[in-house]
Each structure stands twice: as C-alpha cells, then as structure tokens.
C-alpha cells in the first residue's frame, strides 16, 4: 500500500506534489496582489490575480468579451483566455494535470469531460448545481443529451456551452444548373456527386477530420462502443458498409479528393468557398470561413442524409473546472455567465453558432437566422457516436486506432476486411492493457 498523500481521492505522484507545491508558492504573490478585491459570490474564490481560461481559438466572440469584461470588473481579476486548437489544448491540459498547475476553467470539444471525470481530473459541479441549478434553468432548459453527455456516475461535471450538428451544405447554383435536387439519401448523394463532378470541380469533398465520418456511421446505426457487450463498432457489417461507402466516394467513384492527414479541418470549407466542390458535410463553425472567403456564395443547408435512418453527429463544447483548480467558486461564476441565455443569443447573432438551451431555440434571433434554423431542425435527431467510450478509460487510444482505420481506407484505399482486421488486433491490445 502506497504511503503517498492523497488529494481529491487520488494518490499524488512526486511530480504532482512538486507541482502543487510550486503552484501554491506561485499563488502567494497572486493572492497578495488581489488583496482588497471583492470575494466571489460563494466565497473562497475571487481575490484578484489572473483568471486563466483555456479556450478554442475559433470561439473568442465579442459576446464573450463583454461577459469577460464584466466578470473582471465584478471580481477584480484579469481574465486570460488562452486560445488553442483542440489537439494542442489536450497536450497542455494533460501536462497540467500531471504537474498540478491547472487553469481555472476549460472549454473542451465535447468528449473529454466524462473521461476526465473518470480519471478524477474534473471537478463535480453537483454542489453548485444543487444550489444554483434552478436559478439558471439547469437541467430543464438544456437538451437532455447535453446533460447526459456531461454526467458521470450521476454527477454533472460540465456545462454544455455550444451544441451543434453537421448537415449538408450545397452550392445552390451548381445544383440548379445541373438540375439536381439536394440529396436526401446515400444513393441520392452518390448520384448528385457524380453529376456534379467535372474538371477540377468535385461533387463533394470529404473533410479531413475523422469525426466527419461519424455521421455516416450513425446513419447506418453504428456506435463506436457498446457498453453492454464491450464491443466496438457494432453492428460490424453496418460499420464496414459505412466506411466502405466513404472509401468508394474517393477511390471507386472519384467524386471526392482524398482527405489528408492535416490538422486543418477547414479544408472542405475552403473547397466549398472556392466553388471547387458542390456539397460538403459540416457544421455552423465553417459558416464564418465560407462567408469571409466568398461573401457572394449562394448556398443552402439541407437536412442530414438518411442511410438506414436519418441521423447526424451531435457535437459541441463544454465548460468544466479542473479538480485541482484553486478558485472553483470563481470558475463556477464564470461558467454561469458564459452559458446564460443572453450570452448564448448574442454569440449566435454574431457567429451563427448553436447553443444547448431549449429556450435559446425559441429566441427571435435564432428563429430568424437562415443559417441557424436548419440546424435547430437537425438537432433533435443528432446523436453522440462515442457514447460510453469513456467508461473504458481508453478513449484516446481507441480514437487513435479509429483514425488509423479511417485513414487506411479513405487515404490509402485499403479494403474494409483488411482495415477492420487491423483495427480489431489493435483494439484487442488496448482493451486488455
């Protein structure tokens, strides 16, 4: 039995102890700087200094800047929004957890909260919700899935900030010129892509991020993990069919260029804005890119495709507080302000981003926004592809081998039998470890 001291129920490594000691030492001058500043609402927070928030680099909206300014004024702190791409944010965050020197609040891409709750790196928000939940409309005003995706063993660990899905964007003029209606099924999509491919114009461009493959899986009834059986990518035949369909769009029908291994998930949007493709599958996050690149582009947004059923991936970002955060009360106040209905509506007006509150969907600013309306209609049938994967404790490794599966088929053109056999071998090693 280890004799090491425990914090928040977890054993401290030597590095973590040093980190905590270093963090405590670093906190002393900060606390001194903040003397005289108002305390946070619940006490134990506030107190000046820098309030550090890790943020996605594309989400620094004016609406949030206004909230930040008021927060700074009320608490006498300086808010530092450190911006990252998701991959880099993950690296930074995991390093922080190891050292014990963590930020006050984190925006994450929608699948980490439960993983970090399992590893005891995220703070349970239950005590705050028990006190403030009714006042902020939680959970009743949030879409059910936005609550369940942030819940671990009955406790809520994160508050959903954005909640979106991917739909079909199409170039209205290209489709009209070709006499093609926006496709509704996989067969329609293939026919349309064939009819729209000519010269250096592709019927479609499959996006680089592997998460863009998830809607095809969901439309074929596949989830990454079945918690009851402990099996991956089931039903297997449907999973193979969905991946093969995407592979064939590239290699067999040649209606899409190969995806690349780039981190640039805006590549498809760039093709679309340059009118080098007629159809892409993406979410509202690409709308600013498209509008900035080609303000005159006449595009439409159609409902998600139907394979065996109609579905699309539900996604979005969540705010959570690291378990080792030094001023959790202050962090909670920040989360409440950022996820307030007024803030959500202002952010949508500015960026067309979608939000998880039910009351948000009824706001005139949302109802009257032509870019937002199709997504509000898509959200009810949107689903999580990776449901329950965090319970394996191997979410990161399993995503890596899914990436290998995806790239081996879509980029290298491997057949489904071969690629899935390699996936199963790797999965077996990971799950037994």
């Amino acid at each position, binding site marked *: 039995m280890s004799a090491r001291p425990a914090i928040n129920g977890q054993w401290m490594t030597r590095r973590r102890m040093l980190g905590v000691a270093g963090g405590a030492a670093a906190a002393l001058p900060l606390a001194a700087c903040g003397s005289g500043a108002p305390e946070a609402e619940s006490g134990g927070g506030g107190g000046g200094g820098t309030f550090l928030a890790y943020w996605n680099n594309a989400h620094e909206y004016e609406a949030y800047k206004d909230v930040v300014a008021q927060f700074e004024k009320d608490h006498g702190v300086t808010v530092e929004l450190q911006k990252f791409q998701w991959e880099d944010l993950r690296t930074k965050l995991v390093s922080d957890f190891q050292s014990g020197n963590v930020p006050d609040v984190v925006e994450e891409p929608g699948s980490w909260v439960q993983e970090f709750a399992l590893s005891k790196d995220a703070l349970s928000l239950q005590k705050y919700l028990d006190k403030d939940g009714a006042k902020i409309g939680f959970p009743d005003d949030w879409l059910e899935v936005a609550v369940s995706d942030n819940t671990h063993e009955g406790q809520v660990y994160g508050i959903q900030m954005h909640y979106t899905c991917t739909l079909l964007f199409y170039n209205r003029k290209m489709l009209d010129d070709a006499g093609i209606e926006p496709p509704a099924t996989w067969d329609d999509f293939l026919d349309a892509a064939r009819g729209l491919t000519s010269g250096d114009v592709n019927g479609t461009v499959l996006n680089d991020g592997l998460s863009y493959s998830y809607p095809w899986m969901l439309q074929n009834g596949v989830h990454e993990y079945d918690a009851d059986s402990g099996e991956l990518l089931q039903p297997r035949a449907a999973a193979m069919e969905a991946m093969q369909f995407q592979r064939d769009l590239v290699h067999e029908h040649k209606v899409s260029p190969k995806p690349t291994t780039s981190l640039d998930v805006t590549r498809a949007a*760039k093709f679309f804005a340059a009118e080098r493709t007629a159809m892409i599958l993406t979410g509202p996050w690409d709308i600013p890119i498209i509008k900035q690149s080609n303000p005159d582009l006449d595009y439409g947004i159609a409902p998600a495709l139907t394979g065996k059923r109609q579905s699309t991936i539900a996604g979005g970002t969540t705010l959570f507080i690291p378990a080792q955060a030094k001023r959790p009360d202050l962090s909670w106040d920040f989360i409440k302000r950022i996820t307030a209905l007024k803030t959500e509506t202002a952010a949508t007006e500015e960026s067309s981003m979608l939000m998880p509150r039910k009351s948000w969907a009824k706001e005139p600013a949302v109802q009257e926004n032509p870019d937002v309306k199709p997504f509000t209609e898509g959200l009810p049938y949107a689903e999580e592809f990776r449901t329950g994967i965090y319970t394996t404790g191997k979410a990161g490794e399993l995503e890596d081998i899914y990436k290998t599966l995806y790239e081996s088929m879509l980029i290298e053109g491997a057949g489904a039998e071969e690629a899935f056999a390699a996936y199963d071998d*790797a999965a077996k090693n990971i799950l037994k*470890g």
Partner: protein
Amino acid sequence: MELPKRTKRTKRSPIARRQARTAYVFLAPALVFFAIFFYYPIADILNTSMLTGQRTDEFAGFDNYTNAFEDPQARNAFTVTLQFAVATTVGAIVLGMGLAVLINQKLRGSLAFKLALLVPYLTSIAVVGLMWRNILDPELGILNRILSDLGLPTQEWLNTHPVATIVAVTLWMTTGYTMILFLAGLQGIPDVYYEAAKVDGANGWQRFRRITVPLLTPTTLFVSVMAVITGLQAFGQAYIITRGGPGEASDLFVFHVFELAFRARNFGYASALSVLLLLVIVAFTLVQLRIGRDREVQH
C-alpha cells in the same frame, strides 16, 4: 613512456586541497543545474516507466518494457523511425559533402549560395512543416499547380510516400548545416595532398575518393552521429506534416510516445518507450564512434 604505477594514495598538499575546494565551489552551480534539469528528469522517467499506465500510481515492474516488445504499433513506429534516420543520415552525408565540394571550388556567388542553403536550417520545424504542408497539399498545394501548368501528372506525396516526403523536407531543412560542417572539414585539408596527387596523374574522382573522403572521416563521423541521434528523435515532422499518417505510415517513434502520453495518457508505457529509445540511441552512437575510430585517418 610508461607512467609509474600508483601504489598508494598520495597525500595532497594543503594548497592543492584548497584549490580543489575552490574548484568545487565554482562547479557547484553547474552541478546543481545538471542535477535538477538533466539527472532528475532522467531518474523520474525511469521511475515512471516502472508504474502502471494512466494513473501512474501502481508499481508495474518491467511490464511496460516487456509489453513494448509485443506491441505491433511500437514495432511499426520503430521501423518507420529507423527508415527515417537511415535515409536522413545518408542524405545528410551525401548532399552535405557533395554541396561542400561544389562550393569549395570558389565559384562566383558561392557566399549567396551558402546563405541560401543555411536559411532553412535557421527556420523552426513548425514553420517549415506548415509551409511544406501547404506546398504539398495534393489539391490546394502550389507544387501540384505548377506540375499541372507544365502538363505533368500531379502527385500525392504525403498520401503515397509520407516517409520519403518527410525525409525530403528534413534534408531540405538540414543540408545547409551539414554542408557548412563539410566545408570546414574540406578547408582543413592541406592543398599539398591534391597537388601531389595531380603530379602523380590522379583525376578529380580519384582525388575525391583517395584524399577528400578519407580526410573528411572525422567530419563524416560527427555528421552521421548527429544525424542518427536527431533522426531517431524526430518529432515535428510527424506532428506537423503528416500526423503520423496516413494510418500509421509515418508514425515516428517520438510522435508515437507523444500520442501515448498526451492522447492516451499512458504515461508509464510512454516513459518505458522513451527509455528504450534512449538505449537504442546510445547503442547506435557507440557503434558509430567505434567504426569511426577504426577508420580515422590522420594528416
């Protein structure tokens, strides 16, 4: 001359002891720095490599090490890295030496040529990676646009030959530096050898093979040792240019370790792989130094 055998410890004079103490005082800051920033992290990695994966809170003995030898992904990463290191080392020697010999001809404009070749080495791998990533994009990259305008078939370097592509980018970045090293070596070879060889009727190739190459052995050894070490430790190329893909085709070892640590949070196993890589690098370096010592030519 043989030194006399030391039979018993000789007593040092008070002055010598005082000087030794003074020396230790001056060395102390450096020793403390080394202890904190070099030896402690190595000791900590060794310790972590003996702990279990994600929580690193249980002793795992040598399990992480034995698992590494049964892990096909680790084997693949090692193979890819070995290919990369061998290719970049051979390329560094051939290109560096070749360009140095050319530049050593004292042609007009050689200074500008040297500077142009050195600039990529002074640029960070992040910038180089992003630049080549954009240049090589199969659809949006400028290189395929040029090929297309010339009526030549376009290529998918990153998709079809990812390792060869990152080798080429690495050589583009580092050749200027190795060229400068070889140039310094060349300029240290006395002209008298070449003049004597000319008198004996040796042609340019014979002079290169019989004089230049042997007398550049110390430089070649240094370049090869450094290239193998940096090749085995390469990370940025896989992280920025290919993300280790497609699939696992360009999964360099350090990138694989990085993914294990920061995506999978398997710190114990990632640490064990790091230690194994350290041992491989030490082994390669010792072998190279041994070979270099056997072939060294004095002049």
